[in-house]
């Protein structure tokens, strides 16, 4: 058994099966978490009725059976395909959305290298695939997530769906730039590596530390860009309930609709894992035995997977917390945020990282790296914010140049005003 598993191909296959199961489980419970977190933020209880087939009377485990009930409901609903849709694309779109999100997991390094039989020789990588261009693969795959939305919106033959799809495409094009540039910062500072396992290792060991400590601003830029990429609020213009009645998934029902949801949450998880690998040291926690690169036993591997999973869950929480806090942007605000704020900011960060590489900051040890990294990041951020604040152009804000409409006859004197400023009039 161990010998069989020591083959990378077999190990990858087993890991793949385990990951698919784990993803589906986490996705299912993400839907519950989303509803629970929104409920807590709004001082409600959230779903707390569905238990496990009444096994535990008077105790429903805080609604832990809810995802299964929802899944069953989706499965048994009538699958309606509206007339006048482009049938092949209509069926393909939800599947594409989910598949594209799932294949991103292939290159996430879950548990470093493993020595399965304990003979001191590394047998396998705890990773489905370990290509040299893992990072490029991730970028390409996650950018393809918009294909599902665009195809779904187009195939639905519904103008609201199509609006949603167009918005998603425009948004994706805009936010891919800060996304790529902020990742480029990490690549520059870790010897130009594109292998995700290598990026994890470059954050561990003597003179190294997690990238979030060195480039906090790049981390935030990447996080914001990932919000946009996964179509989460405040960037969910593709599926505005209010204006577009659901956007690209208006015409979808039953399990096809559920596939869109599965895809969205899977995308969320893979992005969380990705940002954990890039900025939070992947499976690593400092000073804890079992989580260091030299720990290669199978138990260390499981522990590492658990740690990375914990980081992913933390990010999922942040995604949901932000979603239920910040309202949706208007479309021009969305574009202004990308092109006037995030793109210049991430370009400045890349320039700063290039300068740091030129002056050999990566070899300066933890203190030097953190000092110069944070200094450059904060400087770039402050310069941008001051420029934006001083120029009349705003990152976001209301349109000031709207004409004033008067209901009154201009010849007559103006009536008394209720108040000069907005305030209480008793």
């Amino acid at each position, binding site marked *: 058994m161990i010998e069989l598993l020591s083959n990378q191909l077999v190990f990858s296959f087993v890991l793949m099966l385990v990951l698919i199961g784990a993803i589906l489980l986490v996705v299912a419970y993400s839907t519950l978490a989303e509803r629970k977190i929104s409920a807590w933020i709004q001082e409600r209880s959230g779903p707390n009725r569905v238990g496990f087939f009444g096994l535990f009377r008077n105790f429903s485990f805080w609604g832990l059976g809810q995802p299964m009930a929802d899944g069953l409901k989706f499965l048994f609903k009538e699958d309606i395909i509206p007339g006048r849709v482009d049938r092949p694309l209509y069926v393909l779109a939800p599947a594409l959305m989910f598949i594209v999100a799932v294949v991103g997991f292939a290159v996430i390094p879950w548990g470093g290298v493993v020595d399965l039989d304990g003979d001191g020789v590394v047998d396998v990588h705890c990773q489905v695939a370990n290509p040299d261009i893992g990072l490029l693969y991730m970028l390409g795959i996650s950018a393809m997530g918009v294909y599902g939305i665009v195809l779904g919106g187009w195939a639905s033959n519904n103008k609201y769906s199509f609006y949603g799809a167009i918005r998603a495409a425009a948004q994706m094009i805009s936010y891919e730039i800060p996304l790529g540039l902020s990742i480029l910062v990490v690549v520059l500072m870790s010897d130009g590596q594109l292998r995700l396992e290598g990026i994890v290792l470059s954050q561990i060991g003597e003179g190294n530390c997690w990238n979030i400590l060195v480039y906090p601003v790049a981390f935030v830029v990447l996080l914001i860009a990932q919000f946009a990429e996964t179509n989460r609020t405040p960037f969910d213009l593709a599926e505005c309930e209010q204006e577009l009645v659901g956007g690209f998934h208006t015409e979808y029902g039953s399990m096809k609709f559920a596939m869109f949801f599965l895809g969205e949450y899977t995308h969320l998880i893979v992005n969380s894992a990705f940002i954990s690998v890039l900025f939070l040291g992947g499976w690593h926690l400092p000073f804890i035995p079992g989580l260091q690169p030299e720990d290669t036993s199978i138990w260390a591997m499981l522990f590492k997977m658990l740690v990375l999973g914990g980081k992913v869950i933390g990010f999922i929480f942040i995604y949901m917390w932000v979603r239920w806090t910040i309202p949706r942007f208007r479309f021009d605000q969305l574009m202004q945020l990308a092109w006037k704020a995030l793109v210049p900011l991430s370009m400045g960060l890349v320039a700063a990282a290039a300068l740091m590489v030129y002056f050999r900051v990566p070899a300066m040890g933890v203190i030097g790296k953190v000092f110069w990294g944070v200094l450059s990041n904060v400087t770039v951020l402050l310069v941008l914010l001051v420029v934006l604040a001083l120029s009349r152009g705003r990152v976001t804000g209301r349109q000031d140049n709207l004409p004033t409409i008067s209901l*009154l006859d201009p010849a007559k004197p103006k*009536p008394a005003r*209720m108040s000069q400023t907005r305030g209480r009039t008793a």
Partner: protein
Amino acid sequence: MIADDDIIIVDEMRRDLSMTERLYLPQIAQGLSVTFRRMIGTGRTIQYPEQKREPRLEEDLTDPGTQINASRYRGVHRLNRDPDGRVACVACFMCETACPAHCIHIEGGESPWPDREKYPVKFDIDELRCIYCGMCEEACPVDAIELTYEYDLVGHSRSEMVFDKNKLLDVFDNTVHVKPRKNPRITGYAGTGSPDHQPRRPTGEQH
């Protein structure tokens, strides 16, 4: 045509954003902190079938020692008993006449007791048809019909939801310890101010 005097302009506060507001990120952090504080607070939800809302009870000032339901909710009816335990209704048909939903059906008969002429042989209320307006209890000259605060009124069939005399008397037996609060008497302008009260209109002056 609307007279100019009737137009009230409510100015929108059009001040420029302050520096921190224009920097935008501090505002996001502030919002996140608000929602986080909400999240760790306890909810106020009443888990309905297991927990029930406690009726808000007050001491009845006119009748010391008894309690009055102050939550102003009008639920299922009760048919009161007089101090001797007999049905208090005198079958005057006032409630049936007052009822806007025509959900009360009374059959009067000659009273077996010497202190009144009539009593209800049948007294049916269709609780599904009732709109819980409370006009029956206002119309009743002997305070025999009253609306309780009992709100969980369910049944398996329509016929089950037509409450007869015994059922209504049972409701009284179950809720006898709390006096329902009647509608505020409109003649006293209890809720709306004095009889010469003028509803306030927005004017130009600041108050």
